[in-house]
C-alpha cells in the first residue's frame, strides 16, 4: 500500500523525446505533477498535447527521457514491476484479446497477477457482475459492442484491486448512456479509496468527475487546480464573467472557439 502522506503520483521534470532520424519530437517537455491518494485527477489537453505519452511513461509503457516519477510510492524507472503491481491501466483503445471470452480474459488477468485458478475465477465472476457483463461473459470479446468492451477493459484493470487507476480517455467513442455508466463506475471505484488518473477530451466529464485537474498543451502543463479554482481565476481576469471549463481550456491552450472548430473539421475531413 502507498505509505501515509506519500502522493499517489509524483512526477518531476518529466520529459519524453521521440527520435525520428533528423527530427526529434518533444512530446512531453518537463511535466511536474503531484496527485494525492484518493483523488480523481483529470488530465486534459488537445490532441497531441502529450496526455497519453505522460500516462504511458507513468505506467511504465514508455521509457522516460528525463525527469523522475513515482507511482504509489514506487519509482517508475527503478522499480517498474512494483509500479505495475500497484496500478491498473485502461488505455485509449480498449485493448482486449479478441479471441478470449470476457470471463477467460478476466481469469487470465487474475492468474497473471498471481491469483490461483479458483481465486482468479471468483474474482472474474465478481467483476463481471460489477460491470454488468454476466450475460456476455462466455462470448468472445470480438463480438462486444464498444461500451461492453470499455466496461470489460475497466474490469480487467481492477482485477488486482490497484491503488492507482489510470484511465486514458475511457469514454471516447461511447454513447451517452455508456458514458454515464463509466462515470458511475469511476466514482464507485474512487469511493473505495482508489486514486484515479483520468485523461479526457470531454470537459464536462472532467467537471463532473475530477477533484483536481491539469491542462497540458504542447507538452507542458499550462493550468492546474480544482475546476472551481480554475474557473474562478479566469472569471477574475474577465471581470467576473460567468466561466465554464470550456472557457478555461480555450484560454489555457490559447485556442479560440473558431480555431478549435477548425481543427475538428480538419480531423474529420
Amino acid at each position, binding site marked *: 500500500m502507498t505509505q501515509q502522506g506519500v502522493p499517489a503520483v509524483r512526477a518531476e521534470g518529466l520529459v519524453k523525446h521521440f527520435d525520428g532520424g533528423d527530427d526529434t519530437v518533444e512530446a512531453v517537455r518537463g511535466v511536474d505533477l503531484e496527485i494525492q491518494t484518493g483523488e480523481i485527477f483529470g488530465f486534459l489537453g488537445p490532441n497531441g498535447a502529450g496526455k497519453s505519452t505522460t500516462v504511458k511513461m507513468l505506467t511504465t509503457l514508455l521509457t522516460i527521457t528525463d525527469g523522475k516519477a513515482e507511482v504509489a510510492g514506487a519509482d517508475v524507472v527503478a522499480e517498474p514491476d512494483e509500479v505495475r503491481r500497484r496500478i491498473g491501466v485502461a488505455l485509449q483503445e480498449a*485493448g*482486449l484479446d*479478441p479471441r*478470449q471470452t470476457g470471463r477467460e480474459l478476466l481469469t487470465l488477468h487474475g492468474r497473471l*497477477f498471481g491469483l490461483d485458478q479458483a481465486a482468479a475465477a471468483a474474482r472474474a465472476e465478481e467483476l463481471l457482475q460489477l460491470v454488468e457483463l454476466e450475460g456476455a461473459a462466455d462470448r468472445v470479446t470480438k463480438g462486444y459492442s464498444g461500451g461492453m468492451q470499455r466496461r470489460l477493459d475497466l474490469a480487467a484493470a481492477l482485477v488486482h484491486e490497484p491503488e492507482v487507476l489510470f484511465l486514458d480517455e475511457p469514454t471516447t467513442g461511447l454513447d451517452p448512456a455508456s458514458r454515464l455508466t463509466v462515470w458511475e463506475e469511476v466514482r464507485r471505484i474512487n469511493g473505495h479509496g482508489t486514486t484515479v488518473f483520468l485523461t479526457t477530451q470531454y470537459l464536462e466529464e472532467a467537471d463532473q468527475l475530477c477533484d483536481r485537474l491539469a491542462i497540458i498543451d504542447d507538452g507542458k502543463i499550462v493550468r492546474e487546480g480544482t475546476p472551481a479554482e480554475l474557473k474562478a481565476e479566469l472569471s477574475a481576469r474577465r471581470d467576473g464573467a460567468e466561466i465554464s471549463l470550456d472557457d478555461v481550456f480555450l484560454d489555457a491552450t490559447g485556442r479560440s472557439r473558431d480555431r478549435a472548430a477548425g481543427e475538428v473539421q480538419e480531423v474529420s475531413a
Partner: protein
Amino acid sequence: MNATIVLGLRSVREALRQPDALFMTMFIPIFFLIVNTGQAAKIFPSDTTGFLEGQSYGAFQLPITLLLAASFGMAALFLVEEIEGGYFDKLRAMPIPRYSMVLGRLVAEGVKGIVISSLILLIALPFGIEIASGVIGFLLIVALSALWGIVYAGFMQLIALKTRSAAATNSGGLIFFPLLFLTPNFVPREMLTRPMEIAATFNPVTYLMEALRSLILTDLDWDKILPGFAVIGAFGVVMLLLNIRMIKTYD
C-alpha cells in the same frame, strides 16, 4: 504456475478455437507432398533408386512437408494483432516477466507443432511410408518438427515486434521462406548442381531436413540426427536472445 505457461495455455485455447487454421496449415504441405510425389515418383522408382532405401519417393519428400507445416505458425500474426489492438500494452503493464509475453505464444506453437507433425506422419503411414527408425524415430521427427516450428515462429515474432505491422510481418515471412527450398528437397545433396549444392551446404535448414530424412529412411543414424538438433539449438538460442532483447527495449 508462471506467466509463460499461463500465456501459453491461452494461446493453445486460441488455436483450438480456430480448427480451420489448423486445417489450412496442413492442407498446403500435404498438397505439395502429393503433387511433388506425383510428378517425380516415376523418375525415382523405389526398387532402383538407392537413396530411397527401398521406400517410395513420398517418404523422401515427407521432411519438406513437415518443415513447411511447422513454418505456418500463427504466433507472429496473433502477436502483431495484439500490438495493433492495444492488448499487448495491457500485458506490458502487468508485473510479469517481459520474456513471457513472447515465450507464451511459442509454447503454444510447440504444442501445435507436435499435433500437426504427428497428424501428418499418421496420415502418411497408410500410404506405404514407413518410419524406419521406429517409435523413437517417430518421436524424434515430431520433436524436430515442433522445435523448428518454435524457432521459425520466434523469428517471425521478431519481425512483428520490430515493425508492429501485420502487413510487414506477413511479407517479412517471405524472407525466410526460400531457406526451406535452398535444400536438397528433391534429391540428395550430392546430386544437386554445384551452385545449389554450395547453397544447400551453407543453409542450416539442410541439416534439419537431412536429420528428418534419415529418421524416415534409415535406422537411427546419429551422425545425421545430431546436426539437425544442433541447428535448432543454435538458432533457438539466437532467436530467444533476440526476442528477449527486443521485448526488453520495446518502447
